[in-house]
């Protein structure tokens, strides 16, 4: 489905990636020659700037070749096609993007919220579309997938919502971090009403997300087998820290989960749900948010982590602006450089070194128009 049509952006990025990939293969002498030529061309075109585009990128490519990469698609919020094809166009665009990556990512993480209201039609449609992803897909669950039937269909389609695996020397843990305390029984809510409430951000009726005691116990035992020097990457739909409670940009037992991760030297949490460029570091743990393909969320009025460089305000007149997908480059160190592939904008990379240095090095480009 996604392979038939390649958008202009996809083609542009393919060409661009091919060009950079070619540059990486150059030896030192050839590199200098190309760099000199590009500099000459750039100067000739009157485009010279302090950060001449190719030189910087190539130099980085020489120094920090990643161990491996994986891509992500997240928060697609699908309705059934007869109701709304807008979000379907977006996920197809993302599938195009990840299929167009060269080299292909080792796998593609789906970051949760495949469906908008947990309906069978929505989940099945999403499963169908994700089948056209060329690389293996690792699934994660979001609250929009869960609260109609409490994950029944999701489990049928994709298996257990929490699991772990090892890949090229990195231990991955996938969590179901969207559990909520029962707010529906007492109110006598139907499953549909329950889903509708959870699907909204700005209501105080639902309870806050949590990983829950049972899953924390599972995680503890899973991590017990892992050497403390092994890099750990955790996938969680909710942020696994406390950002903004009223919108459930929040995990109630975040502190307990972080405590489980504390003994490890290098930990990265990749989370969905917040639909924005979002970066954080708490002690040994680095956090990266994922973009949504469906719509961007505004930044919350308070609680924004200090290390976050906000993405420029999305343009409401453009369906794709502020949305996108991305790629994680797992470095030799085991930490992650996170590339936000913002559609219709230049991509932004938030580097592990930026977070590790507390914002002193490798800062991503700053925002021109912060949120109101």
């Amino acid at each position, binding site marked *: 489905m996604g392979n038939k049509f390649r958008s202009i952006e996809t083609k542009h990025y393919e060409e661009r990636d091919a060009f950079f990939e070619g540059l990486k293969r150059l030896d030192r002498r050839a590199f200098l020659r190309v760099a000199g030529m590009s500099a000459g061309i750039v100067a000739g075109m009157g485009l010279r700037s302090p950060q001449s585009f190719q030189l910087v990128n190539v130099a980085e490519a020489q120094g920090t070749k990643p161990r491996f990469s994986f891509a992500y698609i997240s928060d697609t919020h699908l*309705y059934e096609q007869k*109701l*709304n094809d*807008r979000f379907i166009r977006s996920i197809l665009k993302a599938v195009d993007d990840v299929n167009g990556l060269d080299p292909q990512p080792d796998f593609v993480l789906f970051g949760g919220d495949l469906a*908008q209201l947990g309906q069978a039609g929505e989940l099945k449609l999403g499963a169908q579309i994700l089948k056209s992803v060329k690389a293996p897909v690792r699934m994660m669950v979001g609250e929009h997938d869960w609260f109609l039937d409490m994950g029944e269909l999701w489990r049928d389609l994709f298996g257990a919502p929490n699991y772990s695996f090892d890949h090229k020397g990195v231990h991955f843990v996938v969590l179901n971090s969207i559990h909520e305390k029962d707010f529906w029984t007492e109110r006598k809510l139907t499953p549909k009403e329950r889903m509708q409430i959870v699907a*909204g*951000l*700005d209501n105080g009726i639902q309870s806050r997300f949590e990983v829950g005691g049972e899953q924390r116990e599972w995680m503890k035992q899973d991590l017990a087998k892992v050497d403390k020097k092994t890099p750990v990457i955790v996938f969680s739909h909710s942020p696994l820290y406390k950002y903004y409670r*009223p*919108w459930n940009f929040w995990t109630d037992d975040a502190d307990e989960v972080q405590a489980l991760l504390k003994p490890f030297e290098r930990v990265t949490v990749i989370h969905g749900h917040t639909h924005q460029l979002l970066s954080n570091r708490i002690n040994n743990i680095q956090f990266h948010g994922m973009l949504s393909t469906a*719509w*961007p*969320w*505004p930044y*919350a*009025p308070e609680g924004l982590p200090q290390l976050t460089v906000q993405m420029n*305000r999305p*343009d*409401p*007149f453009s*369906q794709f602006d502020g949305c996108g997908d991305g790629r994680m480059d797992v470095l030799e160190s085991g930490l992650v450089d996170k590339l936000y592939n913002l559609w219709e904008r230049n991509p932004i990379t938030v580097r592990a070194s930026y977070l590790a240095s507390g914002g002193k090095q490798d800062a991503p480009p700053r925002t021109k*128009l912060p*949120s*109101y």
Partner: protein
Amino acid sequence: MTYRMKLWVGAGALLSFAGGVALATSPAPRPESLQATELPRHKVPVSKDGNLVVGMCDGETSLEVKGVKEGQSLTREQAARVSAELMETWLKKNPDANWDPAPPPGVAQGQKQAPQQKNPPMGTQKPATGGDIREGGVTAESGGKEVRKEAGVNIQDGHSYGAFTQRDEAVWAASTQQFVDEGHRVFHDAAAVGGTIAVSCDMCHPDASNTHPETYPKYQVQLGRVALLRDMINWCIENPVRGKPLADGDPRLRAMEAYIYAQRKGTKLEYGKK
């Protein structure tokens, strides 16, 4: 006072009476929300001779005007006679009514009116028509004295803005909140706002965030003109929500404006802000 002035005063009284009659009898179209509980109407009897029948605002009393056919206009003198006669009938029916006698046509305002009857104590006054009124209901004074007592200070009362009780203020606050809540509802309901693809406003604007009403009016580059908040609301309804733009007077648009502004309480107004 000249005769001309007297005439004006008399005509004014007459016009307001005639207006009241017209309002009470005309089948004005009502908004949809009110149709379920239509107000009682005063049906005046039909004259056998085809004479004009005038109804009174009490909903009961009526008067056949001899010599004037249905559809014809009354002369000023005839109207004055009709209104006086109706009023007299009503006063006879309601001898205990606490009625401030209005100056009859021709009596100038400058001439001192009859000494005003003192309001009977609260709760003892029975209305002549209509249902029972709960004791301690609203008086003509609207509780201005109570306000003064509550506050324990010597404040001015007896004018519109000086005589509010806590109850008044509670009612106003509740009415305002109701308006805002309606906006909240529309804002969170794709169907209510007329959307066709199940996208509601809150999906991109939780708590109306990023709607920045305080920045309007401003030049909206993408529209190529200066926009108001409502222009942007309608733009969103037309585009991401895929509905039809709402008319300026549409209660949903008004309610959403109320909700959006309410969420930005305390924010500095800064029209034109980028």
